[in-house]
């Protein structure tokens, strides 16, 4: 008897979030990224997969690493790319999100890579746009390519996702990286424990499949993967926690705490890091950290996503 038909394409037109992907589609992206990674290792780092396609990177919110990663991925696939840093002031002036994007769509791009400070912005655009949309981070909602590159990095080191114990520690409330990772890791059979100061824990996080822990130690105990999230320094002024010093004391990842995880546990961070706030420097630079690998894998994973969404005609 034959097994299930292999998945060879993504079923949706857009990548708005991990919630749109099935486990088989996630595996397809990761497998495709393997091939794409190999392109990056060649002397001539270019394939013609998206030749003749126009991709606009539409960033309503500043980002250097994600935009650069997408741009490199697009160029390696031979797409024509355009970067637009759209000031949110156009919205303040009265232009709606849709108007802004309609103007860009009038120039016939094939894909839009969109980052926006508002949750749901990509989903709202997808209802109206002809172009395919890749969510490069929408508000506090999702950052699917980050979760995919994290999963790729984990799989690279652990050989699997299923059955792993993953600890996610940091600003859970304001993190789109958390939401996408949680969705993905749960779909792929991993267990996710989370820890943060209570004011930074989203209400109902259990409903998303996370196991909340009161302390970082509880989350780290026996973990295969430790994923630290960035603390934005302005959170301190909003009384989510009293000081950066106390934050590090209670929730910072130190080598002593890391010893609670499995001996071969890897340490991840989506960047940019606050050394001495969420992570101690010796851990960030230590042998278990895979933080720069995450960045490198980001290009391969984004190539895979763009290829799978934009490489074929409708």
């Amino acid at each position: 008897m034959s097994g299930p038909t292999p998945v060879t394409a993504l079923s949706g037109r857009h990548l708005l979030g991990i919630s749109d992907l099935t486990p088989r589609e996630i595996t397809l992206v990761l497998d495709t990224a393997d091939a794409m990674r190999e392109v990056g290792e060649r002397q001539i780092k270019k394939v013609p997969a998206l030749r003749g396609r126009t991709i606009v990177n539409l960033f309503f919110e500043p980002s250097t690493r994600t935009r650069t990663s997408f741009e490199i991925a697009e160029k390696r696939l031979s797409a024509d790319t355009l970067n637009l840093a759209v000031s949110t002031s156009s919205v303040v002036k009265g232009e709606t999100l849709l108007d802004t994007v309609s103007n860009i769509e009038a120039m016939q791009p094939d894909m839009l890579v969109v980052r926006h400070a508002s949750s749901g912005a990509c989903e709202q655009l997808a209802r109206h746009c002809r172009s395919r949309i890749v969510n490069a981070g929408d508000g506090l909602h999702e950052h699917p390519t980050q979760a995919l590159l994290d999963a790729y990095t984990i799989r690279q080191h652990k050989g699997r996702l299923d059955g792993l114990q993953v600890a996610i520690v940091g600003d859970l409330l304001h993190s789109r990286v958390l939401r996408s990772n949680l969705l993905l890791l749960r779909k792929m059979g991993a267990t996710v424990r989370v820890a943060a100061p209570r004011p930074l824990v989203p209400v109902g996080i259990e409903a998303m499949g996370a196991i909340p822990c009161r302390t970082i130690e509880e989350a780290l105990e026996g973990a295969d993967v430790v994923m630290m999230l960035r603390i934005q320094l302005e959170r301190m002024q909003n009384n989510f926690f009293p000081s950066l010093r106390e934050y590090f004391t209670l929730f910072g990842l130190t080598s002593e705490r890391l010893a609670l995880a499995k001996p071969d546990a890897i340490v991840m961070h989506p960047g940019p890091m606050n050394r001495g706030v969420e992570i101690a420097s010796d851990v960030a630079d230590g042998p278990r950290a895979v933080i720069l690998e995450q960045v490198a894998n980001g290009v391969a994973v984004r190539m895979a996503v763009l290829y799978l969404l934009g490489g074929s005609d409708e």
Partner: protein
Amino acid sequence: MTYILRNGRVVDPANGRDAVLDVEVRDGVIARIGANLEAPAGATVLDVPAGCIVTPGLIDMHVHLREPGQEHKETVASGVAAAVAGGFTAVACMPNTSPVNDSAAVTRYIVDKAAAAGLARVYPIGAASVGSKGEQMAEIGELKAAGCVAVSDDGHPIRTALLMRRVLEYAGMLDVLVIDHCEDPTLKGDGVVHEGAVASELGLRGIPGEAEELWIERDITLAGLTKTPVHVAHLSTAGSLRAVRAGKARGIAVTCEVTPHHFVMTDEALRGYDTNTKMNPPLRPQADVDALVEGLADGSVDVIATDHAPHHADEKALSYDQAPFGITGLETAVPLTFDRLVHTGRIDLARMVELLSVNPARILKVPGGSLTEGAPADITVLAPDLAVTIRAASQKSLSKNMPFEGWTLKGGVAATIVGGRLVYRNPAVDGLEGWPTAPVQ
């Protein structure tokens, strides 16, 4: 002019009526109600379509008409056109216009616009504080003299406990109702939706139900202190209802209203980020919705009010967190109430009329709420079995921001009569063909 509404089922709980009767209207006043009335010479006979119900005119005690200042969203004229199409013979409009209705000049402007439109009655609600800023008490005596029936800083809570106390004392002295938008602004923070699992999943900032409950407890305590009635606008949680029930049980004069969107939708509707699901207070989880329906049925909730809040399409086309709060409601309230409360057996027709007419008239102390002989003939004719498909395009409101597009509901409005004038006739209702084309004297 004299006419008789013949053979309608008259549901008039204030007078203990629920029977098939005739209603004679003479010179804008209800002249007689009885069975098989003999038509006076020259009187027109309007047969009420089979199955239709004649009720006292519906009164919406919470709408936003946007004029002056935001006429691109709604004008007094378009708002009252929407009102009568929704079966409302009167509306009370909140003061968050531009400028804020904190002076007799603005009140009179609204009253004049309403008179010129000549459809539903409009009762302005004045601001409780100057500019609704929560600092200095507005000239409530002047507002009352100009036509305001209540005061509120709606859109914002009355900001400090001390100001609320003073407003209750002063407005109470003048027999002016105080209505509060109950929400602790510090606990709300920059929240845009109900704080809960759905908000967390969607990455939208939450407003806990407790932000409303805390404020209601404050207001009830102050109503007790001042021995002055307080009316809670758009109550939305089970905890809020518990607070109101407890206040009533202590003998405090607290009343409250619930909107149709809060008793028919949950925060699950946020999925998809349709900004027409963004309202304040936000859509709550099922347990709160169930509690509100229970409160509507058992008498704890006094009023169904729409919080009709028109916004222009451009504003609602912004991203979810940037779009304004609020939806329109005047033209959907009756179908939603019929379909979700009456036809499901949660409330009966008499209770529906209490919630939409008797109680708002009583709480605001305005005419209406009953079909009493000698009273102005404000009458709504309801078609309980009418299949209504909600279509924004066919609505009279200038703005079309509501999340019910395409919903098919059972129950609607057949006709609306204000002061004896037929001001709305629903062409979809069979049997009204012989009625004059609205509006007519």
